């Protein structure tokens, strides 16, 4: 560890895809500001450091830690506890750390089923039926690999979090703005937002930023986007293609709908929304154009995987958090 007196910065990935790290590097020359103002002490994707280096640091010695990724196994949980202990400001960075994102769709299956699918189905060449063992005595010594937790958790379900920065991944201009803010705080020119705030995002919904034209929505049939020729100007939901804009937090300038693809909800629940899927269900169900239970049911058949649709990014962060089967381990 260097002793150049600069505040320390760390970034860690738990159960994630690495897109958040790319989004950080995508701030282009702004990354030099990070280097000029911070001493990067731990960032597994960018530099060679070991967990024991972090363990050796004094408590609260890292000023800012961006933590991306959900908590899938006991290694993720250990790192969450360790980085919480070593950091002054811990930011849940990106959708996985905030609400579970794609990894949390595993909360619809038990950990046992996941292992079975991974090691014992047709697409896996595993004639001896070998499964990885958590503890193994090799001639060179004992080896441990992480164990799955029964359900995927968000960062703040494991440790207290100071700030939330949503997005899959967070948009690079938003990251740049947050880094600008932190640098200004370091120079005494600005103040940190209140603890627990959502940073690097808007306070409204994606619909609010969307440039498409909205009329009264009356839906007789839900269509998959690949079976539709979308009108380039009209609201996407109005055309019967599910769009998550009404429930999703703004901050991305409605990139997807403006480009002709429905919002899939990666910025998470809008301000004040307790359960993302519930809010989206409220919006989608109310525009169904039928008062007849049977017809409503046949219109709803156009949504073949409702949980996957309404909780695509938010399963771990939802009120129920996981399916009954996943909780029970069955």
């Amino acid at each position, binding site marked *: 560890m260097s002793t150049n007196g600069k505040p320390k910065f760390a970034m860690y990935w738990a159960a994630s895809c690495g897109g958040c790290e790319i989004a950080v590097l995508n701030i282009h020359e702004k990354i030099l500001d990070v280097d000029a103002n911070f001493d990067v002490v731990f960032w597994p994707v960018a530099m060679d450091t070991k967990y024991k280096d972090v363990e050796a640091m004094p408590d609260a010695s890292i000023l800012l830690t961006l933590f991306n990724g959900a908590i899938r196994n006991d290694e993720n949980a250990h790192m969450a506890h360790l980085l919480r202990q070593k950091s002054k400001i811990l930011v849940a960075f990106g959708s996985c750390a905030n609400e579970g994102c794609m990894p949390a769709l595993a909360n619809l299956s038990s950990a046992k089923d996941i292992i079975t699918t991974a090691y014992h189905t047709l697409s896996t060449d595993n004639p001896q039926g070998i499964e990885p*063992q958590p503890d193994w005595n090799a001639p060179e010594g004992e080896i441990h690999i992480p*164990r*799955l*937790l029964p359900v995927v958790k968000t960062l703040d379900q494991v440790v207290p979090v100071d700030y939330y920065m949503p997005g899959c991944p967070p948009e690079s201009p938003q990251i740049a703005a947050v880094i600008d803010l932190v640098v200004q705080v370091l120079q005494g020119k600005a103040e940190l937002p209140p603890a627990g705030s959502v940073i690097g995002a808007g306070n409204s919904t994606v619909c609010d930023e969307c440039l498409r034209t909205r009329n009264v929505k009356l839906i007789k049939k839900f269509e998959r986007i690949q079976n539709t020729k979308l009108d380039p100007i009209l609201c996407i939901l109005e055309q019967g293609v599910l769009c998550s804009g009404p429930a999703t937090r703004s901050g991305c300038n409605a990139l997807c709908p403006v480009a002709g693809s429905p919002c899939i909800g990666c910025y998470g629940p809008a301000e004040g929304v307790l359960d993302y899927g*519930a809010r989206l269900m409220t919006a989608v169900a109310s525009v*169904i154009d039928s008062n007849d239970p049977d017809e*409503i049911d046949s219109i*709803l058949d156009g949504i073949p995987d409702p949980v996957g649709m*309404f909780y695509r990014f938010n399963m771990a962060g939802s*009120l129920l958090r996981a399916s009954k089967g996943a909780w029970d381990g069955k």
Partner: protein
Amino acid sequence: MTETFEPVIIGFTCNWCSYRAADMAGTARMKYPPNIRLIRLMCSGRLDPTFVLKAFASGADAVLITGCHPGDCHYVEQNYKALRRFQLLKRVLTQMGIEPQRLKLVWASAAEGAKLAEAITEHTEEIRALGPLNWPTGPNGFEQNKPEEMVVQEVTA
């Protein structure tokens, strides 16, 4: 445990019809089980699916949504929105592993105190037979009792 299981049911009522039906059941001294906890909304259209999910996540065994008969809504057509949300929510709950009979929708006008009392009795008995839900995030769920402790299973990554 030898205690008999007493289901906890959260009931959402509409100010203009089913809440008055419950009131009427009370003044007429009709009996229905005390397992239901009634919450008054201005309209069944006010029922955000969040309320239902929160009830289950907080330990309720079942939820009963009530509203004005189709066509009778005080706010013209909001009970139809409740109906559509109910049908969609039921699909989501089924996929989450919650038995669909734990969520029920009953129409009851202000005059139908007896009908409401009967529906509550019937739902209570149905849930009593079905058994507790005990969602892990609820007061008796394991996730609630030891939020700090990580439950690790014998399954490898």
